[in-house]
């Protein structure tokens, strides 16, 4: 296998991390919705925490994207 195709395969493998982050973001929003439906009155006050959790989960997926881009273009 030459280097160019190995790079492409590596970038594709690094892209798996984005899917893993998608699971994380889904869990964040799913759990929020789950509890917001149980207690709608308290839901609005927790939106800041929701987005903090979302940001933390999303950052790791974006990192996987950065790694894939770095493998492809650097």
């Amino acid at each position: 296998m030459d280097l160019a195709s190995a790079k492409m395969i590596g970038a594709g493998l690094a892209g798996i991390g984005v899917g893993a982050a998608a699971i994380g973001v889904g869990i964040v929003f799913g759990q929020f919705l789950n509890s917001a439906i149980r207690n709608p009155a308290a839901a609005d006050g927790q939106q800041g925490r929701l987005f903090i959790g979302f940001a933390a989960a999303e950052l790791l997926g974006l990192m996987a994207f950065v790694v894939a881009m770095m493998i492809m273009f650097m």
Partner: protein
Amino acid sequence: MAASGRIDPMHQFQIHPLVGDLNGSPFVFTNSALWMLVVLGLIWLFMLGGMKRQLVPGRWQIAVEGVTGFVESMLSTSVGPEGKRFVPWVFTIFMFILTANLLGLMPFALVGVHPFTVTSQFTITGVMAIMSFSIVLITGFWRHKLHFFSLFVPAGTPFVLKLLIVPIEFVSFMVRPFSLATRLFVAMIAGHILCEVFANFVVQGLNAGGAAGPAISLVSFVFIMGVMALEMLVCAIQAYVFALLTSLYINDAVNLH
């Protein structure tokens, strides 16, 4: 791009000089600078229209007051009454990021102008993150002097655990500007690359002809509309997250846990 047959999604992020030469002169007016000026002008117009201080506010003034009130309530919930002093900075970055993100999505290419997303450059988001981080550091050391370092030591930790927790807290504190900047610029780059790639699919599918070509074009076109709607949501969320995390970091500096 599409004419050469090969998709080049990174082309749109290129900075090229409009006035001056990148290699020679020290003063270069690039497309990035131009679009930052456009963002500044838009925010200026938006604020000018709403700062008339009428007793009975019109629609425009209500829009402006909605944004300032949103930022102010965000700071007062996460920092407390002291947070009011930081409203100007958080409002500035929130408006700048939101306007720049949305401007980058506008279909100006229909009239031949390619919008440049200034927030897709690490230099710009990095500078904004460093400024936020500097405000946190200056506020923290100003208010608490060297006592600010107790931020790294959670109260009531046993000594053995402190050896472990303090380095972790220190690293997670120092990585904050990096994560702030990376989150924003990568989210913008990823969205624009996705749009570019699928827009190329539309063009190339039509060029390819046959039975499958237009079908692929149609599917890509429908998909890209969904992606665009998602991108608008991401634009707003990223601006909100940047402002929210900045106000949380300011809370650490002001209140020390």
